[in-house]
């Protein structure tokens, strides 16, 4: 580029956003009708590099708008305003089985969006222009409180303002540990949210995985938190839903001999669940549920037989006259890990088996584009479900 030719202008708006918010990427001052590639790059807390890219052509005014123009290929194609985020994957040469999950939610995800000349050959060029954008799980003023005592362990997120707020208990799955990002995001949407750690509890008094632990948690939330209303919501994924439904005293002892492997030697666990579904003693009597229940399932879930489970729950609840409490969202070509919007799709990932400390790669399923659409749609529906039942449920509101 000669000194006299004008530099391109790249803008990402908003430059600081919550992770479930869309942005607009616009480039101007380009040579007209020329090939360019827009690329996003993120360096994760684990030290891996993730990227996405789309191939574009500038128009006659020298402009590329990701919101309005077609990507002609890359990690995504078509008109995809947020393709630079949801289609991110580890850069070539990375370790296998990676999954992008933010651990420290008090800092933003930094994503660099850059523009290159060319299409397939873009990697050989230096970027013409680039911008850093911040993606946050925590909105301004959200308070994070570490809960770490003998009885309970987790991260509590409280919105700013006088309250009181409805509360949410957030449970993740069999991977264990403490994952706070969904709770932080829910707090940014107006809820007190407790991300609960119920595996790897260390010095905890209560037994791992016993129902008593969750009762303790429930009591904690209703008694100790002055900013808490009587409205209480359980949000669980993977093992979470099973916990919510589990009868007291029983633990999940899967029929682990039902695990299969696929052509990549990745473990498929969905048949374990299918076997469990056949055992009445392993199922919670969902006929006794008295509150609205929303089930979000991926039809290509290779880890848990979510759709079959939902069928089973639906049948039982219908028979008990409770069918009106149930909302089901079954997403085609969607896998197991239905995360907040724009989270990169993980079709198979590293997993540490709790009981044996064995490291395996589990297959989660799903095709990237439909899975990403499902994340976007389900999140909006989850938020409106929460709003309806936790904010002003006494008024008829859409």
């Amino acid at each position, binding site marked *: 580029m000669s000194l006299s030719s004008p530099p391109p*202008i790249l803008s990402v708006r908003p430059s600081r956003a919550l992770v479930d918010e869309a942005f607009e990427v616009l480039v101007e001052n380009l040579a007209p009708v020329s090939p360019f590639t827009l690329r996003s790059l993120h360096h994760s807390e684990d030290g891996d590099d993730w990227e996405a890219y789309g191939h574009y052509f500038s128009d006659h005014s020298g402009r590329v708008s990701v919101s309005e123009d077609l990507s002609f290929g890359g990690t995504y194609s078509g008109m995809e305003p947020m393709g630079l985020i949801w289609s991110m994957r580890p850069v070539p040469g990375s370790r296998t089985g990676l999954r992008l999950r933010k651990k420290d939610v008090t800092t933003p995800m930094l994503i*660099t969006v850059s523009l290159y000349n060319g299409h397939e050959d873009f990697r050989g060029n230096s970027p013409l222009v680039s911008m850093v954008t911040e993606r*946050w799980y925590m909105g*301004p003023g959200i308070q994070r409180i570490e809960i770490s005592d003998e009885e309970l362990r987790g991260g509590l997120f409280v919105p700013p303002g*006088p309250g*009181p707020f409805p509360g949410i208990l957030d449970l993740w799955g069999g991977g264990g540990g403490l994952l706070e990002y969904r709770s932080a995001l829910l707090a940014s949407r107006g809820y007190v949210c407790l991300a609960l750690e119920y595996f790897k509890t260390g010095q905890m008094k209560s037994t791992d995985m016993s129902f008593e632990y969750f009762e303790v948690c429930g009591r904690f939330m209703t008694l100790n938190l002055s900013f808490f209303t009587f409205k209480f919501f359980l949000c669980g994924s993977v093992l979470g839903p099973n916990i919510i439904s589990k009868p007291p005293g029983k633990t999940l002892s899967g029929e682990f001999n039902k695990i299969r492997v696929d052509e990549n030697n990745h473990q498929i666990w969905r048949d374990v669940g299918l076997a469990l579904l056949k055992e009445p003693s392993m199922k919670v009597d969902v006929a006794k549920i008295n509150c609205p229940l929303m089930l979000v399932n991926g039809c290509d879930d290779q880890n848990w037989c979510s759709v079959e489970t939902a069928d089973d729950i639906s049948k039982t609840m219908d028979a008990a006259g409770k069918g009106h409490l149930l909302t089901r969202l079954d997403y085609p070509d969607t896998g197991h890990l239905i995360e907040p919007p724009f989270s990169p799709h993980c079709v198979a990932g590293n997993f540490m088996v709790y009981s044996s400390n064995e490291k395996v790669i589990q297959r989660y399923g799903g095709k990237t584009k439909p899975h990403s659409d499902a994340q976007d749609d389900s999140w909006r529906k989850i938020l409106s479900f929460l709003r309806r039942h936790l904010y002003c449920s006494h008024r008829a509101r859409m």
Partner: protein
Amino acid sequence: MDEKHSCVTLSVQPSRGLVDEKFVILVQNSFPSSLLTIYAHHQCEDGNSWHAFAHYTSDAAGAVNVSEDCSMGGTYSGVEAMGLLWSLKPVPGSKPGLRMRKKNVQAPMVVTISVYSSHLTEGFGDQVPLAGVEVERWYMAPGVRRIPVTEDGLTATLFLPSGPGPFPGLLDLWGGGGQLVEYRAALLASHGIASMALDYLTCKYTMETGKIVEQDYFEMAYKFLQKHPKVLGSRIAMLGLSLGTSVILKMAVHSQIMKLRCAVCVSGSHVQPMDGFLKEMLDYFSKNCGNTRFTKDNEVVWRDLLLPIPIDLSLKVDVGKLQCPLMLIVGEDDQNWCAYESAMDMKGMMERAGNSHLLTLLSYPNAGHLMEPPYMPHARVSLFRDMQSRQKMMVLWGGQTLEHSRAQEDAWRKLLVFLRKNLYSGVKSGSSSLSNL
């Protein structure tokens, strides 16, 4: 449990924005047609508290949208999307003469926005709001780098935009209050211009020697930018307010070193002795201090110091010799400098010289001297330390808050378009390749 309390929601989008970006404030789930007060509170770095408030009535769905609904009173009225920022005032009981200016640009300005039941005008601290949120307003976009500059004897701070560069450059000059004021340069870097805020009155050289800097100090600053690896040496502009304008006009016409791509002069004048430079300028102002007036509240009015505009060409910069595009921004109620009269005189000189096609003149009725980036609270009067006498005095800047705030918003938008057009366009001007800005 009071259901009304747990229902009302308040959102501000975006919750983290640049200081010149608009936001949308939405109240939802209140009772239909209820009286509400939306309240903004900000505590400055210096510890002073500022607030603003407006009275609304929710619609049939129980909602208020500040961008669309009418405020019936408070610190602003009418439909004002950003009124809660530009109408911020020191809380009752504050010291007089306060002015809001951000010192640490690496941290955001945090504003708490709350909604209260009924129409309140005071006692906000005694009532529990229905809901409240925090909003961050940033001068620096993500990836903008702040670099203190002390080489070549300069006292400056350079802000580089995000990305590999190189970028067009800009030298940013403030006025007679001195100090190293960074926020405007930080904001311009957030718009893709490598901007350097330059202290030229209280810089290290002056503090150590007691002498005022000469022309070569500014040329050193220009050369620093020109040879910087992240700056496009042929695309450098200057922006100045008040006394900064005087420096820019002199340099733009007379400096052999500076080849400016364009210049923006805010609230200033071309009147100055052609013999000499900054020191002679300051002496000339002192000589005319007999023209100082005082309001009935003993506020200092300095606008007459350079009036009447001289005809003598030895007392003003001959802008007819200007060779780069110039934007002049003036408030017609400027009580500190005769900026409007100066602008009219400059326009006449350029028309007679045949270079008026280079001039963009923005003149705003009822706007005052302190034309700042948008949504910053208007200061009609504030405490000012005079550089010569070292005395603090209450100075009248002028302007009526509503018109001044509108003028700031309009002027900033046009300033950005002007800079972009001149710094980012192809070598041949008149390029229509930029989309509507």
